[in-house]
């Protein structure tokens, strides 16, 4: 704060600067002039300094104002209901590492924040401005929260982020093509940003354009394609994954001749996802040449004759010639061919058989794993529900469900091609047969909240696990998922499980108590989620 310049001389006839200098050196070394008031020199100095200090403080005046910040855009979204605003503050106060230790029966509040944000965004509420700093801090530590937080936090969060470098990330990722990106009616700004922008800005621009309209985005990319650096070309090409259309083929076909091997591989992968593309046809031809039905035996059997060489044509179409260590190169080539071939080709190859019939055919000479694995990758890449269903098989088959060498990760990906209801049914069936120990990844791809049959299957399986006498933390992953994904209406059915049972004879000691605690946490969390939802419901 600025002080007034002395209007009258200080009491002892000394300026403030002289007082300070004298005090620093000591009155023994520097006798203050005019100290003839009869008191000792140090006392006179302190007297004068006291008067001057109070005088200067009393004369404090405001300073000149700096340039005021440009006001943030006014908020037009409706205000949060008061109870929901309080809930948000509670969720944000539960930062990881704040308490630590065993959770006990208390819910993990921070894990509920994503759901809360999703619901609040669905209603289109405005964030209360005073919680923006806490929201931005939470999103700073957890990148997965960022899109939802930034959508909820709105324009004022970006305004704040310009003032605090800790929150710069909010400026980089403008959600929903925020104010920073040019709109479709601004071709000049688009061209300029594309020509002059930083790499991240250009990727954001291309992604936003592609999401809006596939063709102009590709044309923009093609306009500067030969001059881009190899790493950049790879990232730009990757944006075409969104909204891939048949018209992209010529551009991708040209990219097959790219200087960079990674760019060539990505172009080939994208082309193989276009079943009508020339590359897909070439791959179909190569793949079907290797696989045939052998009718010589008692039952029709699939015979496999993998390629003998990886010719330049195959290499150009993205087949990697060098097999990873420990794999035969012929089976490596076969896998790539089958993976990139359109699945429709197999029906024609096998005399109009359905995917189920094809998958059911025996395969000669141990090729089954290789072939079915490649079909799985193809079904995932081409997002083919028919083949996905066939490859998944019925969930209750005893050999860990699903035929062939289909890993849990691949099964989770296959499930993604099915509709929500069918997916939930399949996973419910899987859990009913195989229990929970393998189910975590599969549960992760199911729609939230879980459909009733799935929820029931999970609760029943947890109940069985408890009766089997193991500790609940063997199932902590599934428990955590259940807390977030189970329909809150299930809380009633869980009520009986929250009581502490007598430990059965074969059970781990004390397990019953821990299970009761885990189920308490589950029901408490479910109730809390129900309360959160009702708090967010707009008043009529």
């Amino acid at each position, binding site marked *: 704060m600025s002080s007034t310049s002395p209007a009258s001389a200080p009491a002892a006839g000394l300026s403030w600067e002289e007082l300070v200098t004298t005090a620093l050196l000591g009155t023994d070394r520097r006798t203050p002039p005019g100290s003839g008031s009869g008191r000792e020199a140090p006392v006179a100095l302190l007297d004068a300094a006291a008067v001057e200090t109070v005088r200067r*403080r009393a004369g404090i005046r*405001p300073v000149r104002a700096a340039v005021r910040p440009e006001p943030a855009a006014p908020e037009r979204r409706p205000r949060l209901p008061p109870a929901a605003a309080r809930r948000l503050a509670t969720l944000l106060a539960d930062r990881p590492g704040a308490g630590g230790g065993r959770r006990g029966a208390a819910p993990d509040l921070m894990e509920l924040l994503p759901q809360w944000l999703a619901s609040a965004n669905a209603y289109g509420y405005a964030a209360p401005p005073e919680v923006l700093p806490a929201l931005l801090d939470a999103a700073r530590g957890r990148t997965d929260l960022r899109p939802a937080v930034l959508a909820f936090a709105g324009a004022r969060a970006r305004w704040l982020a310009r003032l605090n470098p800790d929150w710069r990330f909010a400026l980089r990722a403008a959600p929903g093509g925020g104010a920073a990106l040019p709109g479709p009616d601004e071709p000049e700004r688009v061209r300029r940003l594309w020509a002059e922008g930083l790499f991240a800005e250009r990727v954001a621009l291309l992604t936003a354009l592609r999401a809006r309209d596939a063709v102009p985005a590709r044309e923009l990319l093609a306009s500067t394609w030969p001059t881009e650096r190899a790493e950049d070309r790879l990232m730009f090409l990757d944006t075409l994954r969104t909204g891939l259309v048949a018209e992209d083929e010529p551009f991708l076909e040209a990219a097959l001749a790219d200087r960079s091997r990674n760019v060539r591989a990505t172009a080939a992968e994208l082309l193989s996802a276009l079943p009508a593309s020339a590359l897909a046809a070439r791959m179909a031809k190569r793949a079907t040449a290797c696989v045939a039905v052998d009718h010589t035996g008692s039952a029709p059997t699939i015979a496999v004759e993998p390629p003998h060489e990886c010719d330049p044509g195959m290499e150009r179409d993205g087949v990697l010639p060098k097999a990873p260590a420990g794999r035969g190169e012929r089976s490596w080539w076969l896998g790539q061919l089958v993976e990139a071939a359109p699945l429709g080709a197999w029906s024609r190859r096998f005399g109009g058989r359905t995917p189920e019939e094809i998958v059911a055919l025996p395969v000669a000479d141990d090729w089954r794993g290789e072939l079915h694995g490649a079909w799985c990758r193809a079904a995932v890449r081409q997002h083919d529900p028919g083949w996905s269903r066939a490859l998944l098989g019925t969930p209750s088959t005893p050999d860990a469900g699903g035929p062939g060498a289909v890993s849990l990760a691949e099964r989770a990906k296959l499930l993604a091609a099915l509709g929500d209801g069918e997916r939930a049914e399949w996973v419910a069936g899987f859990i009913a047969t195989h229990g929970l120990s393998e189910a975590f990844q599969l549960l992760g791809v199911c729609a939230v909240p879980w459909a009733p049959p799935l929820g029931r299957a999970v609760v029943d399986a947890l109940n069985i696990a408890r009766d089997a006498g193991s500790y609940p933390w063997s199932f902590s992953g599934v428990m955590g998922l259940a807390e977030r994904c189970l329909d809150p209406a299930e809380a009633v059915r869980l009520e009986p499980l929250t009581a502490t049972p007598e430990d059965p004879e074969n059970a781990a000691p004390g397990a019953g108590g821990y299970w009761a605690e885990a189920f308490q946490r589950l029901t*408490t969390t479910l109730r809390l989620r129900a309360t959160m939802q009702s708090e967010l419901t707009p008043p009529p």
Partner: protein
Amino acid sequence: MTQQGVRWTAEQVLALAPDAASRKAGSKLAAAGPWSAAGTSDEGTVWGLCKGSGSKPYQTVIDVADSTGPAYKCSCPSRKFPCKHALGLLLLWAGSDSAVSPGRAAPDWAQQWLSGRRTRAAERTTRTDAASGATSADPEAVRRRAERRAERITAGAAELEQRLTDLLRGGLAATEQAGYGLWEETAARMVDAQAPGLAARVRELGAIPGSGPGWPVRLLKECALLHLLDQGWLRREHLPDGLAGTVRSRIGLPGSPEGPPVRDRWLALAQYDTSDSRLTTRRIWLHGTESGRTALLLSYGAAGRAPELSLPVGLAFEAEVSAYPGAGQLRAALGERFSAPEPACIRPPGVTPAEAAARYGEALRDDPWLDSYPVTLTRVIPTPDGDSWQLADADSGLALPITPSARSRPGLWRLVALSGGTPVTVFGECGHRGFTPLTAWAEETPGATGQAVTLC
């Protein structure tokens, strides 16, 4: 005073928590899940059974109707007070959860504790009356004790004067090497002299030589003010009554709220805690909506315990408040309360930055040792100024800088977010170091409620 039928807000409950961990733990228990047989009576008692890790649930009961503040009892072994169960139950009740059924009779175990408590409280009142009778019976002894203490303080003040003159004789430059020990020892001497106010100031002197550029100026100022206080004490007989009272309170002599009780509707403007290793001090600023007075309530808690008094910001209540002696002293004691705190949309009338600076200057006339003075600024915009921040008047070219310590607190960003570049009303402490914002109000817009937002 009873608060029957008046539910508290969640903020009010959370302010009772002894620390952040309890606040968090309590919030988690604020769901119906672990609670059973919870209820509340018309007399203002809340009770419930909380399922813990053991087989037997904890019995939690809270008497919210007590005029000296809520009382808690819980069968859990926690040494936190109030424990998380009491906080959780109160939050559940505050959230008007159907799990706490109203208008019921307390179960036996709760009733037992309640009646025991009320009997003890009644006994205490009689005893205190008797005890205060006993002390006033021997005014001679009181006077002798006070005299002895005054003599000690006088000896201490004289010794301190000697130290200060020695310091100025040898020069402040020498203190940079002398370090902290010299001041610690002098502070201990002042504690012995029963002058805690002097001791605290001396201890602060010790930190100045290490506080960065410009320290000689700050040290000289503080030495001079300490000298002024010494002199004030040594010549207190010659001072006007008001100023003598100020000196006594600055020296650290206990006063009692002798001012006439002022009944008003008081708005809680700000509440914040500072703590050292032994003591937590809570400051609560009140604004009298009728009288326009500003009063400061102080409440203390032993380390690890929250001070008992808690008045959530933005709530207003009818009560009597009595001032402590001393000119320019805003400290007051809360007397009888006539209504429970309720949310109020009152805001204190505000001034411009220029008027706020002038207010502090005027307040120094009554108390030259004052570091800051409470003011409400109206229509100011938090504005970045290089590495620092200021509160700029929306209608003139003037601004108050924000104090360096407030700059590093998260509250600053809440203030900036609340403003969004538009004018806000800010209550805080304005002094020679700048302005410390404590509470802010935004204009009411579709997105914001215009409620008080705490910044401390």
